[in-house]
């Protein structure tokens, strides 16, 4: 860990001012990702701007019937909030599938969106990594890539985004509220994270000096027919090999609205509008769900060790959609998957 300066932001405007004034500065919220990376010398901020005490901890109803969740709401408060449990249980389920109780108590909503990949080379400064050091090369492409992406990869990087929460948010069509030097803006969560392309060192479309202030959930919560399935190497406290967030609205047995997003397979939560369109108006059957899986996995490209993810994702998509369709009760605290 290298030495750094530290200041506590007085308000959002102050945070933006500090960020702009000190190139090399970083915001710190829960610190559960940033501090780990600093200990490994992967992140070397010259300045830490502590935003953890800013008043961004509210969960409020929006005028159109959605919810606005402050960027500093702890992951656990988010998941256990009565309105989330009632109206957006998919989000609660996804959050509770992540990390551990202690981490979720510390982790903020903004930090969760901004958490960086778990690619082992990214974490090891003794190995080349384009994401850590732009242009140094990607060690994973010809190296150990069992945990890596199968969709949206580039010749420069095949890393995945590790967030569970984002997968559910992507499926529900959430928005990210941002404040910056030139004012406030809102972007769709699906446009927030980027694909690696030639610039894998840039994870998101957040600009210099910008800060996430809140996320917003649209009114539609899919509270009845939803499922978050996380497939991982142990039953808790592990990142997803593949995860699926599925949400359906049904009229009889016919699907009137469908949402599916994948985690653990790409540099961002992976959604396919074709897949969802193809499901609309169809019956909730394995056959139609398999068809949706085809759309979602179109163009999947495996590396040496992650070929299994293609088949695993296919099966997981079908399974999750079936669970959503039959409103399978779900608890992330049970010692089994569902």
């Amino acid at each position, binding site marked *: 860990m290298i030495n750094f300066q530290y200041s506590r932001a007085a308000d959002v405007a102050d945070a933006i001012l500090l960020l702009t004034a000190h190139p090399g500065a970083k915001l710190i919220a829960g610190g559960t990702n940033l501090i780990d990376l600093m200990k490994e010398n992967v992140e070397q901020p010259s300045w830490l701007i502590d935003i953890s005490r800013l008043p961004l901890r509210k969960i409020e109803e929006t005028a159109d019937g959605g919810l606005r969740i402050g960027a500093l709401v702890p992951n656990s408060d988010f998941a256990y909030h009565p309105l989330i449990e009632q109206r957006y249980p998919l989000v609660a389920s996804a959050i509770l599938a992540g990390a551990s109780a202690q981490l979720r108590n510390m982790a903020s909503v903004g930090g969760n969106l901004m958490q960086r990949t778990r690619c082992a080379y990214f974490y090891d400064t003794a190995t080349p990594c384009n994401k850590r050091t732009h242009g140094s090369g990607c060690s994973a492409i010809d190296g150990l890539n069992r945990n890596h992406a199968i969709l949206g990869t580039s010749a420069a990087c095949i890393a995945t985004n590790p967030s569970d929460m984002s997968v559910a948010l992507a499926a529900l069509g959430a928005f990210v509220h941002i404040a910056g030097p030139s004012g406030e803006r809102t972007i769709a969560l699906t446009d927030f994270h980027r694909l690696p392309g030639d610039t894998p060192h840039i994870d998101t479309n957040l600009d210099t000096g910008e800060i996430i202030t809140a996320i917003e959930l649209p009114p539609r919560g899919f509270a009845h027919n939803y499922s978050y399935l996380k497939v991982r190497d142990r039953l808790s406290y592990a990142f997803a090999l593949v995860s699926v967030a599925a949400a359906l609205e049904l009229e009889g047995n016919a699907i009137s609205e469908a949402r599916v997003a994948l985690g653990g397979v790409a540099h961002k939560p992976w959604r396919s509008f074709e897949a969802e369109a193809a499901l609309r108006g169809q019956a909730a059957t394995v056959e139609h769900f398999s068809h949706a899986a085809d759309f979602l996995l179109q163009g999947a490209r495996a590396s040496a060790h992650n070929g299994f993810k293609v088949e695993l994702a296919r099966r997981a998509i079908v*399974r999750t959609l079936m669970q959503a369709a039959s409103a399978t009760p779900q608890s992330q605290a049970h010692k089994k998957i569902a």
Partner: protein
Amino acid sequence: MNAYVGTATSRVDGRAKVTGAAKYAGEFTVDGLVHGFVVEATIPRGRIARLDTSEALKVTGVLDVLTHAHRPPLADKVEAWKDEVAPDEGSPFRPLYDDIIKFNGQPIALVVATEWETAKFAATLVRVEYQEDHTFATELETGRNRATEVKRPHEPRGDAAGALAGAAMRHEADYFVPTEHHNPMELFATTAVWDGNGRLTVYDKTQGVLNVHRYLCGVLDKQPDEIRVLSPYVGGAFGSGLRPQYQVVLATLGALALKRSVRVVLTRQQMYGLGYRPATIEHVGLGAKPDGALEAVMHEATAVTSRYEDFARNDSGWAEQLYKSRNSHYSHKVVRLDVSTPCDMRAPGAASGVCALECAMDELAVALKLDPIELRLKCYSDRDQSEDLPYTSKQLRECYARGAEAFGWSKRNPAARSMRDDKELVGWGMATGVWEALQMPVAVRIVLTANGHAEVFCAASDIGTGTYTIVAQVAADALGLPIENISVKLADSTLPQAPVEGGSWMAASSAHAVLGAAEDIRQELARLASAMPSSPLAGIDAAEVILVDGTIASNGEKSRAVPITDAMRYGKLERIEKHKLNHFAEDKSHARNTHSAVFAEVKVDEQLGVIRVTRVVSAVAAGRILNTKTGRSQIMGGVVWGIGMALHEETVMDHRFGRIMNANIAEYHIPVNADIHDIDVIFVDERDDHINRLGVKGLGEIGIVGVPAAIANAVYHATGKRIRRFPITLDKLLT
């Protein structure tokens, strides 16, 4: 009298541990303590061309940076570096000795600063240039063709190759067990306290204070009274603390260089540069008659070792104890690679070797259409075949029977993929476990004071297994005192001798040392009591006297008794102090082993391959169990670890860099609570009058042996897929 031995006595140090009163090596503090942070090599092989510490030294608070070129003297002779547990072949690693890089993660400098954070920061400023040797190799499988044969576990019997070739039923396969790291909860740490004039008190995380003491005296060229080593509590070690680890050299070097107290705590990541269970290819060949009688057993283990030491354990020889066969051949090969030397890790050798053997037995049972237990009973060996000796005791048949009954084995449908529970395939598997019942010379000193309290002193470590507790139990019973009146002091190099704590030998060894010293105290008390005026014990033969309820009493008639305190007052004794070194009688007429039968139920999600181990029954025969509570905990811990070995644990290396890529416990998976379901531990009655006075064999290692195989066999039974490459991750079931 056995008020405590054999009962579920709670840990005598439990309260100290949960309240934080128990201090570990990295928690001792003295005035002026400074902190060292280790700089590690980032290449696997080569030389240090340049090591520039000037930037680091400029940081305020940095006191010094020790390197091979800048440090107090270290012994040149290889022998000085050979500790009690060092392999016979090779020369041990010498930290900061010279510019040669032998493995990735090798310590190459120690930054010492007034604050730990400062040292850690300054460590990033140490500039290293290497002269890399690109001919390095770190992969077992590609090195297999240049493996070197080392000592065999047993001599061959008959013609195993011929018998295997001619057998009616043959099973032959490779099983792969990956490199695994111990990951004890406590980080490796040393606090070296500068006592002035070159004298040091060293608090170290170790399984053997005397081993570290001798080692330090050798490598630092010190007289025995100039160094004292203590390790009062150890937060798990599992074998990783058997040999002195490099942090103890670095901390003591730092203290000698700076003439002040230095603490070095390794990071979790750095601990992956210490020892590990070596990756091993276990080749097993079994030849049988159609009825299951074995004709041939061949087992060849090929394991990783370093370039500088040949580490080898008995992986391949365990069928010799378990399964009758006229022909057998066991061998061990090592592949020398550019990695650090492996070290013992819970049930070294057996955990991997028996895993392969027991998977192979399962495969043979399937091929022969025999129940796996039936096959094992068919081949059951009542003698250790290598020496043709009977066992001091062997209740393995009873383990099979009790375990099977508790598990409900008789309801098993033998066909693979025949049982299911909703979306999950259900599989039942079993395996045998075996370990040695070892015992070593240990000495203790007991001091009995006139107020009826006793203190027991011994250099042995308690690595979390419960040595404090069993020593107190045995002493309380032997002295006839309540356990609250016994205090136990362990793990100090100035105390009576004990070997390193390992191999499951400490319970039996320390217990009998306590019995020996207590016996001398009993003799003395008997003499006093019988000499007292108008004593109810007047003239009694010392052999007739027992110590019970704080009294010296007649064995036949407990009411004929004298309080211990009275006898001591009469003798004008403030204290009775007895020191005893216990040697076990040499007895080559019997083989000594512990055994187990492990049964596992797995549920495998048919579509996704997710595996859950929903039930484990482990039936253990290990002689008399001194403490059923700590004993059960040992076995449960072993089972949990076995689940990890079967499904999770694997140290992953990128062989292009020769670097471990999952050197942290977020990515190096061990089971978490959600992975653990029912674990049922059964201690089978095993009376053993041969092995030692108490009939104790020791627990610990036996808990893990067989567990991974039982799970792998259950996975096969559930899915019809035989996974021979551990850990069994879900991707292996999908393809």
